[in-house]
């Protein structure tokens, strides 16, 4: 058995050029599934029956702001600019370095749109930090990711599209 490290599950944000930039200096990036349950009791049964009818994935995040970082610049622009609607949507890519893909040097990845819901900022003394929640805004797209610069950036190809 081999432990899967937290740093093997990398997150990236789509930049202006279409490539995905690694999300650095995040002190928190925890996913929640937030299932919506439908519970009822049928008259012919003695117990309740429950189904999960929807799942609303969200990601609680917190990061220390760094200069000259494209991801931070985009997030800070949305938060400080109090952007709403489509202007607050970001595309995130999760790459699982513990799951190799079908081709050499590729890994299983998931792309999805999220809306940025700002939270608190400036609550630490050692660095200026921003916090908030990414809430799901689109369908999950699975595929594979590859990188040529040690995962500073990566490219994503949907399943079935071929790498």
């Amino acid at each position, binding site marked *: 058995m081999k432990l899967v*490290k*937290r*740093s093997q599950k*990398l*997150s990236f944000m789509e930049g202006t050029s279409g490539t995905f930039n*690694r*999300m*650095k*200096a*995040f*002190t*928190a*990036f925890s996913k929640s599934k937030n299932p919506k349950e439908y519970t009822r009791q049928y008259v012919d049964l003695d117990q309740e029956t429950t189904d999960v009818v929807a799942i609303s994935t969200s990601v609680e995040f917190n990061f*220390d702001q*760094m200069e000259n970082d494209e991801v931070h610049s985009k997030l800070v622009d949305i938060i400080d600019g109090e952007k709403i609607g489509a202007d607050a949507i970001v595309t995130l890519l999760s790459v699982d370095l513990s799951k190799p893909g079908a081709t050499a040097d590729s890994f299983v990845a998931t792309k999805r749109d999220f809306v940025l819901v700002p939270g608190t900022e400036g609550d630490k003394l*050692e*660095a200026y930090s921003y916090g908030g929640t990414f809430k799901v805004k689109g369908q999950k797209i699975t595929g594979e990711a590859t990188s040529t610069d040690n*995962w500073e950036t990566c490219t994503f190809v949907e399943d079935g599209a071929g790498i």
Partner: protein
Amino acid sequence: MIIDKIRDFISVCPLLDEFAKLNVDFLGPNATEYTIDSIPTDSILKQYVDGGKLKQYVFVFGSREFYGPDVLQNIENSGFYEKFSEWLDTKTELGELPLLEGNKESDSIEAMSSGYLFGSTEDTARYQIQCRLIYYEDK
């Protein structure tokens, strides 16, 4: 190496005696001479989820100074360290920090203590101040 970059950084401090040697892990018996000694400590201040780290390099900056019953001389020795601490703060504010190699980038440099007398002989004494360089190390 980080200590090499710290030495380069401190060597241009205008407060230092221009004719004095700036050593690493060594301080001779004669005034005036300087040294930078690394200190063992926890290096990781903060770990980020992607594997990046905020780290610290703790070191002592020490000097061999003239010393004796002359109060003015001893005040001058202590005053040097007060000014040195302020110089580090100024450099941090200006963003003029040691240029590190590879995936490391300096964040700040600061004194963690005031300058203090560490040991003395009949006519010289070692003064020192504990400092640290905080830097970001990419994965």
